[in-house]
């Protein structure tokens, strides 16, 4: 069953990589395949993300979870039919999500761009898979070991977050915060704990340590990791109109994330300490070490993105993309490679070629995104503080020009990474499931000793994991709704940013969402130097009538929060800019929207005119 999951996941992986790489290339070659609606950047980018995060990472992760649990429990997979149902549902859900996004049916909710029905299908699939995992795990409930805790809890967090995401959102900022919580649950908490669980398994297998061995440092790492990453969604909302206490909470947990980082790195290090030289399975070891490094770097990047002093100085678009690359393609994929390498006996041919090219790809892409974010971030500060050029209109050329070389490096790195995966898949021949002999005799622990089971019992796992998730939901999704300041509408919202059914403005807003304009354009003026000149600072009330609010932190293009009230705003320029972005601004990286009908362009322009 694990094989089937991995097979389907691999297919989605290739598909997602092609989509994502194409989108990355479009950032440097804006005219690449931009003639049709189905290949425009705003549709490809979210589709690629969905295929990689909800498709590849989730399916391969769940499949390997089955394998890991059957190894830990020493039992065959149970409830095979349910597992098969889960596979079909998840795969169908992901395909439908990607298809819907490419077909222009985006929900506009950051992190959950797919329409609600496709997400519902996936969520039911997650639920089924979690039930299978639980059935497996319960056979050895109190002696799961670190890998077992992570994997079991991760599947349920994924399910709970995905189901929570189906609840209709609040409008405005509370909705954005709610979406951030769901995103943190599926793309952060799940992805990170799954990767760590697979790493625990892979490292214990190759070093001959009993994976079910009770490790106190692992227990500390487990609980602190789950606690902090459950609260991590708000990084993109720092300095936005979200409540200050929410941002403070996000930053505090970004600081606290160094506790699990230290605990897990130390614990995994102790597993390997003094025996790295004698480990026969070099391939798994290399994959695992890179995954660990990527997750450690992600923790640091997440902290820097949340910490106000640094977050105000970097470009969010590239930093969130870089963080996403580190977690999904770095930590997630490499942990999956490691666990899969164990599953395949550590002797798949071509793994060193695959390893080095994948490493170059991931490292190149994430470093380029992060460095580019820092460089263009400083160009954003330079403009307003010298008062020489603003961060919109013609002044945006500086930001685009300073980012361009980094985007090139990132796109080329992603191409390398994709080539590595395709090459690997073509070269896989051996399917031996025999493990390489571990030279050292595995340590024998007598599990009859009662104390061994105490670090994490099944009851503690169930109640603790539930409590952490509920606490995160309460603080980062329910509480913001009760915050009056973020729900009362402002004058701007009442006067301009109201979208009645049947109006041209609403139609324009729907096109703005379906074409993925929010992939590059934020709608949020922050009270920091980079945003001086963009108009009045956004307050929560400005978004009160928008569901969902299109805040986001993405700024490959300039912010559009108050675009219509800026000096020199001209609707006719917007129209010509949409059709041929490089006629007036040769440096623009915006795709051409000439494929839209005249009426659609009219609608978008009238929507843009409401952004005051």
């Amino acid at each position, binding site marked *: 069953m694990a094989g089937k999951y991995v097979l389907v996941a691999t297919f989605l992986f290739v598909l997602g990589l092609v989509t994502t790489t194409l989108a990355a290339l479009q950032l440097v070659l804006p005219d690449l395949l931009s003639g049709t609606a189905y290949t425009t950047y705003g549709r490809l980018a979210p589709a690629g993300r969905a295929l990689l995060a909800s498709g590849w990472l989730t399916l391969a992760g769940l499949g390997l979870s089955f394998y890991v649990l059957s190894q830990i429990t020493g039992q065959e997979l149970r409830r095979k039919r349910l597992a098969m149902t889960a596979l079909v549902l998840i795969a169908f859900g992901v395909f439908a999500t990607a298809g819907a996004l490419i077909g222009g049916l985006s929900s506009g909710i950051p992190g959950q761009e797919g329409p609600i029905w496709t997400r519902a299908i996936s969520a039911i699939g997650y639920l089924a898979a979690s039930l299978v995992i639980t059935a497996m795990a319960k056979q050895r409930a109190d002696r799961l070991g670190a890998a077992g805790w992570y994997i079991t809890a991760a599947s349920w967090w994924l399910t709970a977050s995905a189901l929570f995401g189906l609840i209709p959102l609040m409008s405005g900022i509370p909705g954005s915060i709610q979406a951030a919580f769901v995103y943190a649950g599926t793309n952060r908490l799940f992805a990170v704990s799954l990767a760590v669980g697979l790493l625990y398994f892979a490292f214990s297998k190759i070093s001959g*340590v009993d994976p079910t061995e*009770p*490790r*106190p*440092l692992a*227990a*500390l790492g487990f*609980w*602190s990791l789950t*606690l902090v990453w459950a609260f991590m969604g708000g990084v993109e909302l720092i300095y936005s109109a979200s409540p*200050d*206490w929410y*941002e*403070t*909470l996000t*930053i*505090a*947990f970004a*600081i*606290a994330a*160094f*506790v699990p980082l*230290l*605990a897990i790195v*130390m*614990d995994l290090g*102790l597993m390997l*300490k*003094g*025996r790295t030289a004698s480990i026969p399975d070099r391939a798994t070891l290399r994959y695992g070490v890179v995954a660990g490094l990527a997750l450690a770097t992600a923790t640091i990047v997440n902290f820097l993105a949340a*910490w*106000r*002093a640094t977050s*105000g*100085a970097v470009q969010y678009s590239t930093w969130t993309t870089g963080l996403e690359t580190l977690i999904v393609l770095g930590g997630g994929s490499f942990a999956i490679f490691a666990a899969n390498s164990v599953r395949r006996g550590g002797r798949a041919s071509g793994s060193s070629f695959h390893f080095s090219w994948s490493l170059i790809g991931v490292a190149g892409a994430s470093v380029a995104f992060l460095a580019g974010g820092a460089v263009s971030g400083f160009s954003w500060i330079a403009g307003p*503080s*010298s*008062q*020489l050029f603003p961060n919109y209109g013609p002044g945006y050329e500086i930001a685009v020009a300073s980012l361009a070389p980094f985007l090139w490096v990132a796109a080329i790195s992603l191409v390398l990474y994709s080539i590595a995966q395709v090459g690997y898949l073509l070269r896989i021949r051996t399917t031996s499931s025999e493990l390489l002999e571990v030279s*050292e*005799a595995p*340590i024998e*622990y*007598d599990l009859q*000793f*009662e*104390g*061994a089971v*105490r*670090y*994490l019992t099944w009851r503690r796992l169930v109640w*603790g994991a539930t409590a952490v998730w509920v606490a995160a939901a309460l603080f980062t999704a329910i509480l913001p709704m009760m915050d009056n300041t973020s729900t009362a509408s402002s004058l701007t919202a009442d006067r301009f940013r109201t979208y009645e059914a049947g109006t041209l403005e609403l139609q324009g807003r729907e096109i703005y969402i379906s074409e993925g304009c929010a992939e590059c354009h934020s709608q949020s003026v922050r*009270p*920091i*130097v980079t*945003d*001086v000149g963009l*108009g*009045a*600072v956004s307050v929560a009330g400005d978004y009160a009538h928008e569901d969902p609010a299109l805040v986001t932190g993405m700024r490959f293009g300039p912010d559009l929060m108050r675009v219509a009230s800026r000096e020199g705003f001209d609707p006719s320029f917007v129209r010509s800019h949409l059709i041929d972005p490089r006629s007036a601004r040769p440096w623009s990286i915006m795709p051409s929207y000439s494929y839209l009908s005249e009426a659609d362009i009219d609608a978008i322009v009238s929507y843009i005119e409401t952004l005051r």
Partner: protein
Amino acid sequence: MEELLQRVAEIRGMPASLVKRSAQARADKIGTTLEAVLREWAGDADAGEPASAQPEATEPLSDAPAPPAAPAAPAAPPAKVTTDSLVQLAADAKRMPPKLILSSATARAEHSESTIDEVLADWAGVDLDELRAAADAAPASPEPAAEPEPATAAPPEQDSASAPTSAKEEEPEAAPEVDVIEASAPEADTPSEEAKETPGARSGYPRWLAAAFVLIPLLAIIYILLTPSGPDCGNAGQLLVDPTTGQTVNCDGSAFGLVQADFFAEGEILYVQCAACHSADGSGGAGPAFTGGALLAVFPAGSCAEQIEWTQLGTAGWPDPTYGATNKPVGGFGLMPGFGGRLTDEQVAAVSLFNRVEFGGQPLEQAEIDCGLVGGAATEAASS
């Protein structure tokens, strides 16, 4: 010598070769002879003097270069029978990590309503009472806890055929975890009783880790307490938002990009240099007083320029025999140093402004014009 070695080996219940190695390591460390160490371990009183220096000498744990090689330690007979030592004995007997032994023993003791020590002694295959009696009879070491040290100090990288091989294989893995328990115990969300009862800290485990686990959450909490409602203006790039227009402005409310110079505040800081002679409250000292109208009598309204010049030149540089409206004789009160070389023109003007307003009582706006620092001089940074 050989006989001594045998005796120690017997007492300690460990192979003679291991004893010799441990003793040699101890001897090298505290700078004494092998024999002296062995004698001391054998309980011979006549070789006592190097022994008394021991506990301190063995303290630096960092000196032990090796992974905490507990393997030899368990065999050492404890000078005092503690749970720790029993754990080591039992661990050695069962060839299992001490950590597991302890947690298991705790659980077993709870179930069987006996003490942990009894359970451990049972597992170790020793008679608890006998051991206690033997320990009491043995000469009390100044610091019993330091006793297992000699074995720990033995460099384990040297191959020793006589060392229990299986234990040797296990221990490098298991030993770090023993320490791990202590570090995680105060922090872990699932505080386990057995963790608290673990033996004392051993080398090989980074102490900073335990500190970090406390410090990091503490930092996070401090952050929450300090900035519950976001950072103040000026911190972390934060600007002030004008509540009526929604535009970002400087922290003092002026339009963004305008640099508002506060010369009065600048002068107040610079006055520290004057306070030595004129005192902090301007009441004078080695130099004349400014308060009580004295300053404005010498330099009345409209003559700030002369005050600035006087401050810049001082008594040594002043060209005329007198200065000020009252024609005070230069040097009559003492030596006024010239600040022209030390402070810029603007700084001298700022400190003069401060003097005139703070001590002379001249209104701020008038003094600003007087001293050439017009109207708070809002200078537009980007206007150039």
